[in-house]
């Protein structure tokens, strides 16, 4: 980190979140320690604790931060003047773009949040730490079904039809078995998702 300018507390906190997220995503939650994060940040261990009381707290914060970020992206698409079909294509594309720009966010979700549920017991139960994403997707589905574009069904089948393939694609990418980048499959996948969800 450059030392030339002063960082505000908020900026510094965000920096810790980004660095920690990368380390967690790469090495796993249990193989990453606060001293590792401190070292990567060029900070003292004690100073990190000024920002986060524990590794667990940091882990939850990262999840909330990523959810807000992704939720905001979906919200922007939700509020655009586009057809439901166009929105499906755009959400899929945006998801893969984020996965490319900040792969650690999605990796973190798959490899820490979903794999180490025990860390997220208190304060992150259920959807508490990913509520922005869920809320925006609920609004998206509700609106689409209300105007007759989506087939009526319960929320969770619709939700997994959209998010399942996205997670799957990023997972395959992470495993190194995907010949092309996820963005390049974006339209093809969006077409499948749209066909599965559309009304009639």
């Amino acid at each position, binding site marked *: 980190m450059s030392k030339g300018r002063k960082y505000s507390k908020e900026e510094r906190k965000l920096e810790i979140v980004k660095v920690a997220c990368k380390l967690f995503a790469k090495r796993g939650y249990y193989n990453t320690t606060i001293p590792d994060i401190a070292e990567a940040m060029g900070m003292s261990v004690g100073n990190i604790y000024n920002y986060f009381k524990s590794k667990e707290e940091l882990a939850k914060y990262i999840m909330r931060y990523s959810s807000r970020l992704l939720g905001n992206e979906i919200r922007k698409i939700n509020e655009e003047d586009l057809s439901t079909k166009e929105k499906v294509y755009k959400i899929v594309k945006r998801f893969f773009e984020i996965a490319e720009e900040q792969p650690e966010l999605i990796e973190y979700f798959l490899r820490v949040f979903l794999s180490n549920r025990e860390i997220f017991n208190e304060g992150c139960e*259920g959807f508490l730490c990913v509520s922005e994403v869920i809320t925006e997707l609920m*609004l998206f589905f509700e609106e*689409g079904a209300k105007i007759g574009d989506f087939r009526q069904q319960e929320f969770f089948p619709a939700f997994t039809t959209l998010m399942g393939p996205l997670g799957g694609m990023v997972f395959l990418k992470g495993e190194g078995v995907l010949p092309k980048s996820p963005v390049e499959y974006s339209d093809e996948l969006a077409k499948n998702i749209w066909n599965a969800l559309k009304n009639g």
Partner: protein
Amino acid sequence: MGKKTLLWLQGLSCNGNSQSLLNAENPSFYELFSRVELIFHPEISYKENILQVLEKVLSDRKKVNFLVIEGSITTNKRFHRIGDYTIGELIDRLKNKVDYIIAAGNCASFGNIPVLYREHKDIRGLQFKFKERKGFLPPDFKTKSGYPVINITGCPMHPSWFTQTLIALLEGRKVILDKYNRPKEFFMYLSHDGCLRNEYFEWKVEAEEFGHKEGCLFYNLGCRAPMTHAPCNKILWNRVSSKTRAGLPCFGCTEFDFPLRENYFETKKNIGIPEDVPLGVSKRVYITITGVAKTLKNERLSKKLEETD
């Protein structure tokens, strides 16, 4: 000074509001009409002849202070007539003679169920047709007292909403109206306010069946109370209960769209998300709060009430 007078006329009506009025308490029907002279009521008056009553009123030999209309308005004699008049003609002739016009119930207020008879266009409420100000009387119409038609909505209205409004007017108190010309004193509340199931609503514990003591009826069973202006859980029915207290959903019968919905026992949802959310919050806020509440379990509310500590 003599007693103030009240004339009750019916248009296209099922008599429900009259039946409701007979159940009035504090004041009761008889107490009320010992203070007010009831010139005529089609269900109760047996000595008077309506045509003679009307003749006196129309020729200004009898003053009417309160004209109460129950039922929707039409000017088609095939559907409705009193003597040789339709209810529409009578209102036309009486509207500038009386001090107040009160619409008793949803039909007189909004047109309500009779308007659904689509083959005939000439059926409406006194000053509204559903939510539009396209009733029988013009939108800016006011009686001599300066009030528009005062709407006591409901299918039927609660007797107390009517009697208390009447008494307020008798005593010269100012009655503040909402945008549908309903007295705010009653219709500023939602029928959700005061329901015994409010805790279940907060924690999103949903009832799956009718008639049980536990669970909120909003998510599955069609309860409209969080979007319905009415003090049904403040001023109870027959002083004992309300629909939602008894485990039946609020049907939203005090609102203009009451007959426009389809299934009264089911919540309209899109991909599992309620299409209408409680008044005062956006859908985004509602969904967020619901998600949180659903995740955090309230132990007490997961049991039968009899089994709680």
